[in-house]
Each structure stands twice: as C-alpha cells, then as structure tokens.
C-alpha cells in the first residue's frame, strides 16, 4: 500500500514538474518574442506581407461568419425584445454584442483555427525540413527574421478582421431587421449612433482583438517551433494550437471584459 502510494506520488510529482517546466518554457518563449519584436520593424515589408497573408487567408471565413452571426443575432434579439416592446433597440443590442464581444471573440477563435493552424504547420514543417537550423547556421535568428514579422502581422490583422466581422454582422442584422422584419431603418441606425461609444465600446473590442491576435500568434509560433519534426508531430502541434489558443482567448475575454467594464 505504502509502495503504491509512493509510486502515485512520484507520478503526480513528475507530471507536475513536467507541466511546470513546459509552462516556464512557453513563458520564456513569449518573453523572448517580446524582446525581438522591435527588430522586425526594421523590415516593414516583411510585416506588411504577413498582414496581407493572415488577413487575406481569413477574410472569407470571417466575412461569412460575421454575416451569419449578425443575421441570427437580429432574429434572436427580435423575439427576445418583442414581449417588452423594445424592438426599436434591436440595432443597439446587436451592435453592442458584436463590437464588444462576438466580433473579437468569434474572430479570435476563427483566426486561431485558420491563420494559427497554418502558421504552426508552416513553422513545424520548416523545422522538420531543417530550414530553421539552416537559418541559425547562417547567423540569422529565426525569431527575428521569421517569427517576429508574423507576430506583428497577426497583431495588426486580427483587429482589422474583428472590425470587419462586426461591420458585416451589423449589415446582416440590418438586412434581417429592416427589409425582413420591418423595423424602421432610421430607428435602427440612429439609436446605434446615439448610444454606442467609440472608445468604450468599439475601442474595447479592438483592444480585445489585438490581445487575442497576440495570443493566437504566440501559441501558433510556440507550437510550431516546439513540434516534433515528424508528420505526426506537426499534426499534433496544429491541433494543440487550436485548443490552447481557443482556451486562452476565452479566458482572456472574461478577464479583459471584467477589467474594461469596471474601468471608470
């Protein structure tokens, strides 16, 4: 019995140590990324190329999802507001839900699934093909040359995608609310104009999107750089990117919402 307990303790201890070591390694990687970010600004063309790559790759899925979410949200809110005679507020409710929450969060999750996985696979395959080692041997730091432009590219692309998601979502909500349900168009737009605060509502959404973009990029780069240099290793790393990024996005969303809403 005592021996079994000792074995159990050893397993728990070893697992805890491994997890702590992995967490420490990931934290060091993230801090290291912060340190090399400024260097990549010396190559703005590389950053711009990544903004285009990430933005362009995710455009279709973001636009389609934004439209679908906007349409469904308008329908749901219509039936929720109808019993209270508050249908005129439909535009406002949909707008706030999109710009504050759904825009950044759903875009973040889609971004992790679309751009994050592509990035992990790219870096993982480069590692498997020894391209990262080749770069190191040329005295070129892959973190500066490869990782940092991608990180900044994601950081810039993600808020733009979230804005696009919200904008298309609002158009979708308009299409359902005004032509389909018959809500007055002036009322739909004017209450939105009057009650949505640019800094507090739209600004907080953009801030969230930037944070989610950074999370997705760091996770994707880390998983790619640490992947086993085998087809199975790259596949596993790609899956981990989606899971880990999504969990971090959802956790950080709660944390950021709490902080931003409590701000005076």
């Amino acid at each position: 019995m005592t021996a079994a307990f000792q074995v159990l303790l050893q397993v728990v201890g070893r697992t805890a140590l491994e997890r702590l070591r992995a967490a420490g390694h990931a934290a060091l990687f993230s801090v290291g990324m912060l340190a090399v970010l400024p260097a990549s600004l010396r190559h703005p063309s590389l950053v711009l190329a990544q903004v285009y790559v990430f933005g362009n790759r995710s455009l279709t899925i973001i636009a389609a999802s934004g439209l679908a979410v906007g349409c469904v949200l308008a329908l749901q809110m219509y039936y929720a507001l109808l019993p209270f005679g508050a249908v005129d507020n439909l535009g406002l409710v949909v707008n706030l839900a999109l710009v504050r929450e759904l825009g950044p969060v759903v875009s973040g999750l889609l971004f992790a699934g679309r751009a994050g996985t592509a990035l992990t696979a790219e870096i993982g395959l480069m590692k498997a093909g020894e391209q990262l080692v080749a770069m190191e041997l040329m005295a070129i730091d892959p973190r500066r040359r490869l990782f940092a432009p991608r990180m900044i590219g994601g950081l810039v692309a993600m808020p733009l995608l979230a804005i696009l998601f919200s904008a298309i979502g609002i158009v979708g909500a308009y299409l359902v609310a005004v032509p389909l349900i018959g809500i007055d168009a002036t009322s739909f737009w004017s209450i939105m104009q009057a009650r949505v605060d640019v800094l507090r509502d739209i600004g907080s959404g953009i801030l969230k999107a930037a944070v989610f973009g950074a999370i997705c990029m760091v996770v994707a780069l880390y998983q790619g750089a640490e992947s086993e240099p085998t087809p199975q290793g790259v596949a596993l790393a790609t899956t981990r990117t989606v899971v880990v990024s999504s969990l971090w996005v959802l956790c950080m969303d709660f944390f950021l919402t709490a902080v931003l809403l409590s701000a005076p």
Partner: protein
Amino acid sequence: MLANSDPFVELDDLTFGYGSGPPVLAGLSLVFPRGKVTAIIGGSGCGKTSLLRLIGGLHAPRSGRVIIDGEDVDRRDRSGLYLLRRRMGFLLQFGALFTDLSAFENVAFPIREHARLPEAMVRDLVLMKLNAVGLRGAAGLRIADLSGGMARRIALARAIALDPDLILYDEPFAGLDLVSTGMTARLIRKLNDATGATSILVSHDVPEALGISDHVVLLASQGRVVAQGSPDALLASDDPEIRQLLHGGSDGPFRFHYPAPTMAADFGCAP
C-alpha cells in the same frame, strides 16, 4: 604532421550525447588544419554529423571545447556564436532549402541578410554561385521543381554564397549522379584552393572524399579515432579497421548487424 600544422578548428576532449542517452562522442580530440580539406569517414551512427553540428554550435558538448580560429564556440554567447557563424558555410545533409523561395532567392538569402549590396550586385553574385554548381539556368525554378541532386547543388551554392572561411559539408555527394558527384568534388577542392578556406566534409563516398582531401580522419563508434593522415598513407595501410572503413566488406572488426539475440532465439527455434 599535417594535422598539427596551424589548426583552424580544434576539438579538445569533446564528449557529447543527446539528452541523457549514451555518449555519441566520448573524449574526442582532433585538429583540422587551416586551408586544407579534411574528410571524416566512418560508419553510420559513429557521430560524424553530430561532430559537424558541434562545430557549427548547434549542440552544446557535455564536456570539452570546440575552438575555431582561436575562439571558443559557446552557445551561451549568442552574438559571439553568430559572429563565428558568419564565417562559416554549412551544407546540411538534406539541403534544407527554403521551400517557399526560388533557387535564386535561396542563394541570395544570406547575401541580402548580411551584406548591404545593390540589387544588381546581389544578382551577379548569386548567378556566379549558381554557375559554379552548374545551375545558373535553374535560377528561376521553385525548389519543388528541382530534383534531389539539383537541390543539393543549390544548397551548396547557398553555403558558399558569402565565401566563408570554414565550410562544413555533411554528405555533399549524397543523391548526386556520377557527373554531379565529380563536379561537386572538384568544386569543393577548387573553392578551397581559390579562397584558402578550411573545409571539413563528412562522406560515405570514400573514393571521391579521398580524391579531394589533404587529410582524412577515420572514426569508429563514440567518435573513436581509428586513424588519421593523408589519403595515400591510409590507403596503403594494412590495418584491418582502416581497410574495412576504406574498402568496405562485411568481414572485419566492424559488425554490420546491430547487436541482437541469435536468429534461432528471435524466430522461436531455440532448443
């Protein structure tokens, strides 16, 4: 002795292993003379590639030192290591070309990163390097469109793009046809003579490696130095280990089979 004359790379009591595994190299001391071509020949798994990677600073030894032109290769000193690497060219075993770039862009990559040259000059330099490996006409091809042998020659052009002082070749003849093998061997020799670079090459292609080397090191498992000297001296040796490493043959001190139980035991025929 040649190995003792003006060393460019020195390995001092080097011990190395992967993780907590058994040592791949144990207490290895070697000297690679400046301006010469040194070939390292040995069986698979004797630590040849690990040795090159230790010289390139990709791995840290468990103990001992790697010294290049009087400077320690220290992975903890990143900027110092990068300064040393700027003087190196490394042809990796599988080429490791950047698959999203063309052949031209692959060779131009280190030049653009390290030298601020006008684009016209970069173009001329790249075309010269590609011409040296016989692939000037393939400059615009994508890596996916190259054969294995062509890809290795492009990788060779990239390794010599900055005219390094030290060139490390890991299996430079692997996957090349006879014509390309001969041309590559002559190119390695010519580069060395023209630039005064120091070359270390790891190869299983004994005739080609011996044909272009000034100095040869024969390695056995765990980096044990079986013999070293000039190609002619080693070829004339009657030592059974040297003969087996240079001429092949399954009978000799080196076993072809990995240690295993008897065939009878493995196939269930044991009495």
